């Protein structure tokens, strides 16, 4: 039973991952990627990390839904259901990837992996929380800052109006030319 529980998501993850780049439409590719990443979440749960596995499943479901919206926005055909081929250097990339897989497989199969050390905690989620709020606090703070920086960067990149629009070509306008009044000092 355990073997089936492993092989089903494992094979599905790799096959649907490969199908992402075989499907003719971006919409199908998105759902194929979603299937692959859901299987990764399932395998993580199988490894005993229930919380992280479920987080991956939830996050990927929402992420792929957002990705589908962006496809509708940017694709040359509505929702990306029309056939398309948008690839370059297929042969070279295939050779690189096959060689890398063979190299990684050789390393995986030949490396003298260390024996299992220690026992899994009764509650891995509790262990993760205690670690992030204790010895790994710096990691948590760095992640927090990275997320904050991402929010600022995405807004700056995605917004239509830049500082030259607001403060003029020489950036010397005394008051910013904003469509809506407000902000600091006004």
């Amino acid at each position, binding site marked *: 039973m*355990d*073997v089936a529980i*492993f092989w089903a998501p*494992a094979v599905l*993850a*790799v096959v649907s*991952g*490969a199908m*992402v*780049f075989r499907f003719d439409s*971006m919409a199908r*590719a998105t759902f194929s*990627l979603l299937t*692959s*990443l859901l299987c*990764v979440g399932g*395998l*993580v749960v199988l*490894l005993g*990390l229930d919380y*992280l596995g479920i987080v*991956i499943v939830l*996050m990927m479901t929402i*992420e792929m839904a957002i*990705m589908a919206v*962006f496809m509708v926005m*940017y694709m040359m055909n509505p929702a990306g259901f029309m056939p398309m081929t*948008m*690839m370059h250097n297929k042969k070279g*990339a*295939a050779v690189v*990837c*096959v060689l*890398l*897989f063979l190299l*990684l*497989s050789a390393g*995986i199969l030949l490396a003298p*992996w260390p024996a*299992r*050390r*220690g026992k*899994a*905690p009764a509650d*891995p989620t509790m262990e*993760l929380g205690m*670690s992030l709020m204790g*010895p*790994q606090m710096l*990691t948590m703070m760095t*992640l927090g800052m*990275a*997320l904050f920086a*991402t*929010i600022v960067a*995405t*807004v700056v*990149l*995605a917004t*239509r109006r830049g500082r030259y629009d607001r403060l003029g070509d020489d950036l010397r306008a005394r008051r910013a030319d904003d469509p809506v009044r407000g902000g600091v000092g006004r």
Partner: protein
Amino acid sequence: MSLELFLLVAAALFCVGLFGALTQQSIVMLMMGLELMLGGVILGAATAWHYIAPAAAEGQVLIVLAVTAMALEMAIGFAVVTALFRSREIDMTDMAAELKE
């Protein structure tokens, strides 16, 4: 099931993702390749935690890092696509070749 089997699946996912990242012309599809690669990294980290050092919480922290990287990559990627599309009306990597200059 063994450590090697899980790692082989992770390696396969990483290589399939790399193929996508190297071949795709659409930036959104390229990002899908990166997501698959990070999926492989997550599975590899979870395998290492389970089979090598289950008592160490750092393995789980590494997965949190990879999951966060996935979210950041997607957010920044879409913002870059939006900026590119707004200025040039393109969503293909080949048409944005001048960015490397």
